[in-house]
């Protein structure tokens, strides 16, 4: 069995440092890894990233993250990634990694993802350059996730995104903004590999549970949705350990 802790949208700045830490200190006893589903900061500044590093670094379990839209706001992504990396937090963007856990090899592939909408109600790669650029960002991001997922050799495969791969976990959000909250292409990428679980954030008013058209379980772990420091999932009963 592999134990995964996950949360997204923690939006850390100086005023939040210390709020999560007591719960995080318990992680080595109850999880093999902590996955963060983006929006670690409020504006994506280097100083906010240092607060994230202070709160989520040195936990005694590996920490893997993707970035969210908030983490891009101040155009300091390289600095944010470096600060997180220096604190031992791995940032995935169209990439993946395999962790050797007591219960088996856990593969995690991650990408921020993007909006675009869901089947029959989505944006198309057509028309103005701005519209085409928007949809091409969606497509490229999803293709990168699919490639990363299919490239991992592991016993249990998890997809980590900020934007949602399915509409199910957006229930509670206004229908009109679904195209800004996720896209079906991420779901298609997840279904292109033997993914066991897909985790995302971004939709603060959404709901926890959904599935992709291919039957992969999806969980919205945005902090306002789960209302606790992190959720824990036990997977891989078939694995030894």
């Amino acid at each position, binding site marked *: 069995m592999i134990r995964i802790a996950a949360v997204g949208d923690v939006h850390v700045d100086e*005023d939040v440092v210390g709020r999560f830490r007591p*719960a995080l200190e318990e992680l080595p006893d109850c999880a093999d890894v902590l996955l963060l589903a983006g929006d670690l900061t409020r504006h994506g500044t280097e100083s906010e990233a240092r607060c994230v590093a202070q709160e989520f670094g040195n936990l005694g379990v590996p920490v893997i993250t993707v970035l969210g839209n908030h983490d891009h706001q101040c155009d300091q992504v390289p600095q944010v990634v470096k600060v997180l990396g220096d604190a031992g937090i791995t940032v995935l963007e169209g990439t993946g990694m395999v962790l050797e856990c007591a219960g088996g090899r856990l593969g995690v592939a991650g990408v921020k993802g993007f909006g675009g909408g869901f089947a029959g109600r989505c944006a198309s790669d057509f028309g103005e350059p701005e519209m085409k650029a928007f949809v091409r960002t969606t497509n490229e991001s999803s293709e990168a996730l699919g490639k990363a997922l299919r490239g991992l050799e592991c016993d249990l495969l998890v997809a980590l995104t900020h934007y949602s791969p399915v509409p199910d976990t957006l229930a509670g959000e206004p229908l009109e903004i679904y195209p800004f909250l996720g896209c079906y292409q991420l779901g298609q990428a997840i279904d292109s590999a033997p993914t066991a679980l897909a985790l995302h954030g971004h939709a603060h008013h959404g709901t926890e549970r959904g599935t992709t058209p291919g039957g992969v379980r999806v969980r919205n772990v945005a902090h*306002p949705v789960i*209302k606790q420091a992190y959720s824990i999932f036990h997977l891989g009963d078939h694995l030894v350990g």
Partner: protein
Amino acid sequence: MNEEHGGAPPDEYVEAEIHRLLAEDPDVAEQGITVLRRERGLVLYGEVESPHRREEILRRVAERFPDVPITSDIGVIRAQAPTQVEELP
């Protein structure tokens, strides 16, 4: 004219402007706050990560729209360790 509140009830444009203010003002940067228009003013609800952020939202909205009565129902998200695990066989 709504004499009780000293101004007209907030319209859709006020709602839109507040919604954008909450996301785009660097002192706020919140996309998870819902703005509800009611006859007697606006209700803001949602959840934020600290009491300071809740206060800042109210301060910025009141500063921009001093004549609009605002009711706040914004909570601070709990950050305790989970008491249950989800088993995914």
